[in-house]
């Protein structure tokens, strides 16, 4: 049986594709676990984690959640708004780095204890 979506919106796909994606998700999860097990560090670690994460997320959304087979209008309505999150993540990342730098300069380990001499106190 091939990929069919009936008039009533029933999703009908060959069972093989579910088994393939299931197996693929197992392999990808094992690979991302290996990233930690092998203790890879730095940019290699972060790149691999993100790579495996997006692959897994993509397969779950596209095949298990049938987004690949849905109407393009609905896929756009659901997936495009998620792009707003990139703005949030970008802004908060910028903000967090600024906070970290400020703490490194003025505070003792972010505990709130004033450390550096020469910092003006308002009394």
């Amino acid at each position: 049986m091939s990929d069919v979506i009936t008039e009533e919106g029933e999703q009908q796909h060959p069972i093989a594709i579910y088994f393939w994606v299931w197996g693929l998700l197992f392999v990808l999860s094992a690979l991302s676990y290996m990233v930690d097990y092998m203790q890879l560090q730095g940019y290699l670690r972060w790149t691999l984690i993100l790579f495996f994460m997006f692959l897994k997320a993509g397969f779950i959304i596209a095949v298990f959640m049938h987004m690949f087979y849905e109407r393009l209008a609905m896929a756009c309505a659901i997936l495009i708004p998620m792009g707003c999150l990139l703005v949030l993540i970008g802004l908060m990342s910028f903000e967090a780095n600024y906070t970290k730098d400020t703490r490194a300069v003025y505070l003792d380990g972010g505990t709130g204890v004033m450390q550096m001499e020469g910092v003006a106190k308002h009394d």
Partner: protein
Amino acid sequence: MSYGAAVDETGRPVKVVEGLPGVVTDWSSDQQAFKRVPWGKAMMWIFLLSDTFIFAIFLTSYMTVRTSTTVPWPNSSEVFALTVFGNHIPLILIAIMTFILISSSGTMAMAVKFGYEKKRKITTFLILATAFFGASFVGMQVFEWTKLIVEEGVRPWGNPMGAPQFGATFFMITGFHGFHVSVGVILLLMVARKVWTGDLENMRPGFFTGRRGGYEIVEIVGLYWHFVDLVWVFIFAFFYLW
């Protein structure tokens, strides 16, 4: 004042109601934006979109506190390590939980397929298998939380391993996800009962809303379940592996 005659798809004039009743009739005027998508499925997708934003906000605040703290972040690889038969294995419980949740997604996807083929026995079995995997996931999470609280002394306001924000974000993010899994298990059991008794096949009205639903209900609860798995993919990457 007229803005042009309101007509339906076939060109027949539509009765326009004013005032507060008009709000209701306008929104319930049976317009279908997404063709060949059952309304319940479109609504579930919109709910999942909003849920995505909630989880994204949790993960973003986690990123913010982890980036901005000058105290070392606890090494999750070691915090979540277990000693199994004398072997010290890093992050092993989380890896097992990941495989269990992925397996539950696999059985769920096949339950949707067999549901549309109206194979009631195997659909019920697959949904129950999904619920079983989900329940065992929650069980392992209880074990993980107990170990962290009782043995490691992690609290939402501090822990012995490093930055105090670790506990706050950990309990908030995994707690909210675990709550989603628990709700999912309850929904799955309800849908499994509907499939088993033939409620979906005979379009019997539901006991709560009184609405009649067919096998698209299996796909709709499936969407929710896959979403729970999807969120775990992100939590696994950002909280446990990063």
